[in-house]
């Protein structure tokens, strides 16, 4: 079913009515900052392009699509004077552009890869499963608790995936399963506006999970968490599974007094992933988990919590504007407190993007996931 201009108008009319064009959302936009402050690349400009499309002032065309793509970091929403949930509007416009055949070519390739190879990176499933080689043993295929690596942890951060599996196994018993041929949850399809294909891919992923016998699903990817839990619910897909981001799971254990003692003498800083912080509202949880490590000191970055600056890695923006995405990452690295050399985060996309930029710039900074740090901070078992 094609998403028509009338439907787009229905879905975004509230935004168009309530936006005062005040521009309060613009200064925080990472994409605007690396686009010479040209309005169409900022939040007010994106909203107004949506207005132009539905009111007929603008003809949808590839150049417009290219400007609509941003990192979907959600910082503009925090600043919006009219409390608008702007990322919903951007996604609705992406949906319309997708159905009008105006998906940018680079993004089309991502969809093709997911639908063909079950991951957005266009690699063979066997390569996606290679992270399992990092494990001391072959994990079970069935179990009550499932570690869902997600494509980015599995393909781009295999060590993190391996650490996550081992940590979860230590904390929740031997019954931790992994799906060797884990399908993509489909989130990038949703991000590029192909809502129908997304629903199919999501259903495929949920079926694979159910087949594993899992009741609890823990993932290192906050985007997978949004997809499998929040979006599935929004779309009315009942699955009865308990889906956790690993930080949420660890936090629950901490609150129940079931998190073991960790110890590590280190000074770190924490980068809030947009998907986990602003979109899932988990800001205090990662900090409480990290603070449970004896000897660890967290020094905050400039811009943290709900006001954290984006790393450039989200929203498929990187696929479209690689150079600018890494300039955003570079800006984020400049937010690090001086004298801190360890940057901890809780999202495989942030980890990958920031680590790549650290390498590009030859910086003396180590980028880790929370689970990597916890594995380092385990006390030798007596």
């Amino acid at each position, binding site marked *: 079913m094609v998403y028509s201009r009338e439907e787009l108008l229905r879905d975004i009319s509230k935004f168009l009515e309530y936006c*005062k064009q005040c521009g309060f959302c613009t200064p925080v936009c990472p994409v605007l900052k690396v686009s010479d402050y040209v309005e169409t690349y900022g939040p007010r400009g994106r909203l107004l392009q949506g207005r132009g499309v539905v009111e007929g002032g*603008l*003809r949808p065309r590839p150049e417009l699509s290219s400007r609509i793509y941003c990192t979907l970091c959600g910082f503009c929403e925090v600043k919006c004077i*009219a409390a608008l949930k702007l990322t919903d509007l951007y996604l609705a416009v992406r949906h319309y552009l997708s159905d009008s055949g105006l998906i940018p070519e680079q993004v089309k390739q991502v969809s093709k890869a997911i639908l063909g190879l079950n991951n957005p990176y266009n690699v063979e499933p066997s390569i996606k499963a290679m992270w399992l080689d990092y494990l001391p043993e072959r994990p079970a295929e069935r179990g009550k608790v499932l570690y869902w690596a997600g494509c980015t942890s599995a393909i781009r951060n295999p060590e993190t995936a391996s650490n996550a599996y081992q940590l979860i196994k230590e904390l929740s018993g031997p019954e931790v399963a992994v799906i060797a041929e884990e399908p993509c949850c489909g989130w990038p399809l949703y991000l590029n506006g192909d809502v129908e294909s997304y629903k199919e891919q999501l259903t495929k992923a949920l079926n694979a999970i159910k087949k594993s016998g899992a009741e609890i699903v823990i993932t290192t990817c906050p985007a997978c968490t949004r997809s499998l839990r929040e979006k599935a619910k929004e779309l009315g897909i009942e699955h009865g599974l308990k889906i956790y981001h690993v930080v949420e799971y660890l936090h629950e254990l901490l609150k129940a007094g079931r998190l073991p003692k960790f110890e590590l003498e280190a000074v770190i800083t924490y980068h809030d992933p947009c998907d986990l912080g602003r979109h899932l509202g988990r800001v205090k949880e990662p900090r409480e988990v990290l603070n449970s490590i004896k000897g660890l000191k967290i020094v905050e970055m400039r811009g943290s919590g709900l006001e954290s600056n984006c790393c450039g890695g989200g929203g498929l923006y990187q696929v479209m504007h690689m150079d600018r995405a890494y300039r955003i990452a570079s800006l984020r690295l400049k937010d690090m407190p001086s004298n801190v050399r360890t940057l901890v985060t809780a999202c495989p996309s942030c980890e990958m993007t920031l680590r790549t930029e650290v390498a590009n710039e030859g910086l003396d900074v180590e980028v880790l996931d929370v689970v990597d740090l916890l594995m380092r901070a385990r006390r030798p078992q007596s």
Partner: protein
Amino acid sequence: MGRELVVSRLKELLGSEKVIDDPEELYVYSYTAYAVVREEPLAIVKAFSTEDVAKVLKFANEHRVPVVPRGSGTSVIGASTPVKDSIVIDLRPMRRIVVDVPNGVVEAEAGAYVDEVDRECRKYGFMFPVDPASAEAATIGGALAMDAGGMRGARYGTMRHVTLGIEVVLPGGNVITLGGPVYKQATGYDLMHIFIGSEGTLGVITRGWFKMVPAPKSVGRVVAYFDNVEDAARGVYEIRRRGFAPLIIEFMDDIVVKLANKIKGLNFPEKNMVIIDIDLPKEVLSSTLNEVAEVLKAAGASEVRSTTDPDEMARLYVVRKQAYPTFAAAFPFSFMGDLSVPLSALPAVVKKVREVSSKYGITIGLIGHAGDGNLHPLVGLQSKDEWWSKARPALVEIEGYSIELGGTISGEHGVGIERKDLLIKELRARRSEVVLEYMRQIKRIFDPNGIMNPGKLID
């Protein structure tokens, strides 16, 4: 000169990456904050340097192409709305900030955000004195061109009072510096102050030098709730008469508080509210706050809270911070007015606002920087059509009334397109209509071809 020719000549002069004329850009730049009118420009130039601006103004002057300087487009009276067939110069790529600690001066390029400049100053124990509510988005150039003010206006004044010098590009491309990084200058006519508040109608400001003031080390807050506005005004007057020198004195009427409670889920007493910040050394701060609280109680406040705890201070301020967002979220269309009156006229303004509000059947709340008599009526509308039939006449009545009270039709938002008639009304009331002619003559000196932001401020 046709669009294509203008664009291609600009691209030759500046390089094609600095000139944009895609339909998406032209459409998006046609809007500015709370815009009632919009107009697409011919092209947009991204200015990275004073030289870029000079090249554009030389070209535009020769060919008589209108130019509209633009910061963030947060001006609420259409000052930065493009005019027909114009070149918009977006100054935001020019954002260098240099703090000169020994001399207590900060230098900033036109595109830097006011808040960004403040944050730079604070790294060295200073702050930028002017703090418009729009500081995170408003640029230095926009703030200078509008003579912006803020909460600390009662103490430090507006941009006019903190600016030491500016660099300006004139139509024709000449670059001049007026004033400079010195605290005193007695060298003839003060042309700098003609450019501050000129709303982009004389030239393009490319940088400025400003006074920094020490960032307060210890601040406390007193919040008082009044059943009636007369008492609130008397409270503020008593505070000043007794020689307290607050950092800020903010006012909010019960209509705004009620609405904020409802829309933002807050729980503040639904009364007229006065917020006072005092900065003093720690040893005397608490006792001074108590004295302030006593004065406000004696003036008739039914409830007074005071604190030095930063979290509690922030909590008490939430409702004031949420005033604009409340109206923006509660109404599909909302607008803000601006006027400045002698403080003793505050109760009269509130009374007038209530009358006008019921006359037109629309919601109007009142907030303001009571310390300097600057008030903003906030108008909420259900449909845009009500702007012409209700909101605009209501604001004209309220702002016009400020003239009768010895005040002015704008404390800080300026004239732009939307208040030109009110400016004339104000000058007439003062029997000073000739001022308009002086303004026109001044404009002709700097901008003989009339290319700078035509149709704004004066016709």
